[in-house]
């Protein structure tokens, strides 16, 4: 038993418990934030130290320790760090429950780390539910009507989605007799197309898995929870949800579909086609419905649906050409990293501004260019990155994903995606226009405090670095994409 390979997860679990206990026995609550931040720093630091060429399986092949998992663990620790930093002022709204807030963020980060590492259907389900249940509670943290309502909707729909996912897992288990992803792949390779078509339980199981994961990444037929939950949840939680939960969903999809269902081409072509179809409707519906939105959190919610669509273009490319799939994976990893920084930056700016003006309406952002120039500039940069314009990270991310797709004969999909990027420019730039050219409601400055500024600075720096010198992160993503041999 190599427990030392499990240190990032153990650290997070210990610190989550520590935060709960400190909250119970210590009167000065400002410690809690420091403790949880230091837990994330330690977990992230250990993850960096573990980065290497060899990959191992621990706990009876239930978890993999490879560069792919480590890449995501570092990403999740970073996201949670930025979210906690950004919610410094916001936690005043639920000051009595600060301890639970930090502990739940740590626990859901732990769940996501496990999701990125899991190589077995059982541990996959447990990790997924650890993440989801923590998030259900976090969404309801404001305890007002909207927030609890969002939480209930998220819980009910999320539970239905996990039941569907579980049924898919049961069918896959039943038709292969295995729960370990590598063993499933071996069992599938010994089957022929005819025998699978004769008893289509495996195909049914794969479709149900796509439905269950589609809920996690908010792909279109399974997206109905997104706008309500994004609007009702506390804004830092919305930021966390839109970035980390989506990245975890893609991590698990990449892992499961590449290592279990990647090999016979007749299988991978088919799930590639399903992802291509989902990508098309996600992009179109996300972008078109985002246009009339007046609430900025709802607008960012629909925009995140569209971004999931762009990411699924990459998944479709992997399905169509499993032979060069490592390239497809590294482009998806790069897109996820850039999307995480960009969207977090946008949300941190929204948190800082909304917390002071007490409104999420886009109309109330009028004249923010004069009232809060730093925040408005950062928000502008992030929105430009979301459109996919240079010099921001979003441009390089889209460029990589689309060029991989073109190489794999998915030109039609890329044309639709580029057209959608043009549509999306309309509603992103509308916010920019309102901020810089709108008439401010009052000449009063909107102040912001140190910690959110630091978080925002880190995000914007990341967006620019990824946009101008993408090679650095791309090399990491390539190393991470090559792993997974279980």
């Amino acid at each position, binding site marked *: 038993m190599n427990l030392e390979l499990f240190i990032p997860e153990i650290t997070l679990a210990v610190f989550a418990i520590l935060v709960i206990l400190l909250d119970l026995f210590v009167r000065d609550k400002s410690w809690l934030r420091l403790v949880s931040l230091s837990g994330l720093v330690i977990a992230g630091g250990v993850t960096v130290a573990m980065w290497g060429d060899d990959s191992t399986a621990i706990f009876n092949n239930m978890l993999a320790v490879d560069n792919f998992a480590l890449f995501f663990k570092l990403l999740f620790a970073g996201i949670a760090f930025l979210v906690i930093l950004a919610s410094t002022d916001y936690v005043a709204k639920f000051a009595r429950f600060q301890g639970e807030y930090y502990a739940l963020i740590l626990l859901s980060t732990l769940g996501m780390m496990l999701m990125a590492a899991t190589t077995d259907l059982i541990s996959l389900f447990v990790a997924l539910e650890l993440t989801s249940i923590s998030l259900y509670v976090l969404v*309801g943290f404001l305890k007002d009507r909207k927030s609890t309502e969002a939480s*209930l909707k998220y819980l009910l729909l999320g539970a239905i989605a996990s039941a569907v996912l579980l049924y898919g897992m049961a069918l896959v288990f039943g038709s292969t007799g295995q729960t370990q992803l590598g063993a499933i792949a071996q069992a599938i390779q010994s089957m022929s197309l005819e025998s699978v078509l004769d008893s289509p339980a495996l195909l049914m199981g794969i479709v149900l898995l796509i439905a269950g994961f589609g809920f996690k990444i908010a792909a279109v037929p399974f997206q109905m929870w997104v706008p309500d939950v994004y*609007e009702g949840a506390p804004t830092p939680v919305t930021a966390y949800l839109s970035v980390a939960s989506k990245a975890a969903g893609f991590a698990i999809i990449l892992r499961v579909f590449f290592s279990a269902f990647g090999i016979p081409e007749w299988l991978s072509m088919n799930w590639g086609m399903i992802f291509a179809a989902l990508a098309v409707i996600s992009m179109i519906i996300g972008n078109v419905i985002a246009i009339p939105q007046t609430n900025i959190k709802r607008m960012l919610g629909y925009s995140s649906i569209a971004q999931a669509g762009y990411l699924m273009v990459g998944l479709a490319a992997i399905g169509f050409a499993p032979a060069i799939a490592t390239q497809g994976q590294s482009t998806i990893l790069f897109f996820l990293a850039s999307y995480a920084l960009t969207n977090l930056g946008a949300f941190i700016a929204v948190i800082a501004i909304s917390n002071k003006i007490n409104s999420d309406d886009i109309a109330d952002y009028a004249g923010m260019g004069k009232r809060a120039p730093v925040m408005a500039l950062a928000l502008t940069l992030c929105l430009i990155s979301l459109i996919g314009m240079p010099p921001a990270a979003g441009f390089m991310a889209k460029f990589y994903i689309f060029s991989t797709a073109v190489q794999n004969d998915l030109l039609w999909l890329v044309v639709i995606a580029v057209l959608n990027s043009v549509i999306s420019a309309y509603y992103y730039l509308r916010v920019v226009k309102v901020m810089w050219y709108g008439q401010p409601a009052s000449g009063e400055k909107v102040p912001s405090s140190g910690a959110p500024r630091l978080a925002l600075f880190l995000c914007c720096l990341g967006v620019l670095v990824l946009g101008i010198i993408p090679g650095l992160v791309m090399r990491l993503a390539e190393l991470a994409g090559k792993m997974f041999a279980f």
Partner: protein
Amino acid sequence: MTIGLEHYLVLSAVLFCIGLYGALTKRNAVIILMCIELMLNSVNISLVAFSSYIVPLLLTGQVFAIFVMVVAAAEVAVGLAIILAIYRGLTDIDASNINLMKW
């Protein structure tokens, strides 16, 4: 007529569909939670059946079912707690009244 794997699978599929139908059509949040529980437990039936017919020497499916039970209980506990939080402010749990935010 002996009872074979397919009988368990059909039972499980029927229960799953009843649960899904109820979860999508019912208006009472507690009943929706019960329907979700029905869906999860129907999956448990097929997990255990698959396990004992396809890999009779291993206990994979049974162990999976235990994990599902525990996770489902945690989910229901959180669900009931959220319903309590709503009930405090709303006085009823008809899911069609939970409509502050619309598309």
